[in-house]
């Protein structure tokens, strides 16, 4: 079988804050339907890398290609169009506090994609249904649990028909009991062929589902490989230490 095509490719992304380089020449590519997982200590550049990919953080250097076309992110229109195709999920959900669940999902359909209200409402409802929130559509963020909020934010991203999704520690702000409801939504996405890059400390989840794990530290992608390889026979000493620690805390893969 021929290899699936590369959806997203980033080359030499570099980001500095003052003198500190928080991202150093990060490069990777991801093929259709793959799930890549970023693992590494906090402050290691995982968030910065994800935010540089859709230019929420402007990299000092580096290039990004989507579907083989370079993203000319200095052109506003092109940047806005590109971001619509790249869904993003944040650790803190970042729902719009003044809108109900369904309002959160439909707002970009109406004001970014220019859908009429009725059509947007229908689409938003079906996305919320897909993440299991049919009964909560009219609730405001303050009335939802953390897991529900994160599922709304996933529905909000999915409604834009993204070709790739970036998930920045989507379960780190959740109570242990709520983590699984979000992970199961992500698992469904994976089963349906969504291309995703996700940073997480959920080592079990990573081991079970990742096509590839990228170990990041001090702004550098230190090592890349299949979960099996990184868990048991990482080449890098530092990678081995980190995986030992994290397995100790979060448990072996299920």
């Amino acid at each position, binding site marked *: 079988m021929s290899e699936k095509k590369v959806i997203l490719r980033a080359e030499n992304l570099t980001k500095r804050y003052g003198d500190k380089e928080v991202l150093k020449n990060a490069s990777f590519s991801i093929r259709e339907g793959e799930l890549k997982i970023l693992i590494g200590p906090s402050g290691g550049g995982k968030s910065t890398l994800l935010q540089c990919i*859709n230019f929420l953080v402007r990299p000092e250097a580096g290039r990004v290609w989507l579907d083989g076309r370079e993203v000319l992110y200095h052109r506003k229109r092109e940047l806005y169009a590109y971001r619509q195709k790249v869904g993003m999920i*944040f650790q803190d959900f*970042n729902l*719009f*506090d003044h809108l109900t669940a369904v309002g959160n999902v439909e707002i*970009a359909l109406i004001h970014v994609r220019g859908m009429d209200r009725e059509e947007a409402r229908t689409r938003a409802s079906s996305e919320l249904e897909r993440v299991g929130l049919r009964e909560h559509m009219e609730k405001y963020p303050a009335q939802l649990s953390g897991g529900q909020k994160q599922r709304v934010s996933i529905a*909000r*991203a999915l409604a*834009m028909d993204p070709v790739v999704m970036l998930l920045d520690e989507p379960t780190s702000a959740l109570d242990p009991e709520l983590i699984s409801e979000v992970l199961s939504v992500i698992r469904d996405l994976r089963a349906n062929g969504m291309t995703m890059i996700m940073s997480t400390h959920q080592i079990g989840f990573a081991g079970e589902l990742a096509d590839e794990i990228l170990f990041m530290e001090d702004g550098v992608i230190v090592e890349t490989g299949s979960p099996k390889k990184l868990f048991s026979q990482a080449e890098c000493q530092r990678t081995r230490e980190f995986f030992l620690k994290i397995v100790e805390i979060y448990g072996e893969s299920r």
Partner: protein
Amino acid sequence: MEELFFIQNDVAPALWKGLLVSIRLIVPSAVFGLVIGVFVGVLRVFGNPFLTRLADLYVALFRGFPLVVQLFIWYFGLPHIGIYFTPYVASVIAFSLCSGAYHSEYVRGALLSIKRGQMLAAKSLGFSKIRMIRHVVLPQAVRRALPGCGNEIIYLIKYSSLAYMITCIELTGQGKIIASETFKYTEVFMIVGAVYLVLTSAAAWGLHRLEARVRIPGFQH
């Protein structure tokens, strides 16, 4: 008895006329002031450095000059460079610009209180900056600014009384005319004061209703 006739025949009609002028001053000034305030507040938070400076300068000037002085400049000063306003128009301009400067401060504070993450989320969905401000940031900021802006509108109702200084004869002006004709200063100005109290109370009640109407569960923290 004489007192009552005096009030009914002389005071009431004059003050009624004055009240109508006051309302014609207050309503447009409140509306323009709010529009200016929102616009300038947004510029001060989201504008480019040049526009932000310009907006800051506007606020410094119009908040720093005494309002009476501003009125004098609009009405007595500008004719020297060939610009003429009627007392009414000069008053509305002065009130709107002064009010706008204060509103912008409340709006700015509210804008700064909106969590940055929500803006990142909006951008990640493909919102342009202007659309993000319009559909995500402002609807929340306006709710937060409402108590402060309401306060400013109540101030406006009272400082609209300064219009009579440039011969726009509104409520206070009418009161002053009758009072100096009859020397019944206490009676007349007590009534004038009471009318303002009714206006400000009505405004406070309306603003309160508005706040309740746009309240969102959990939004006020």
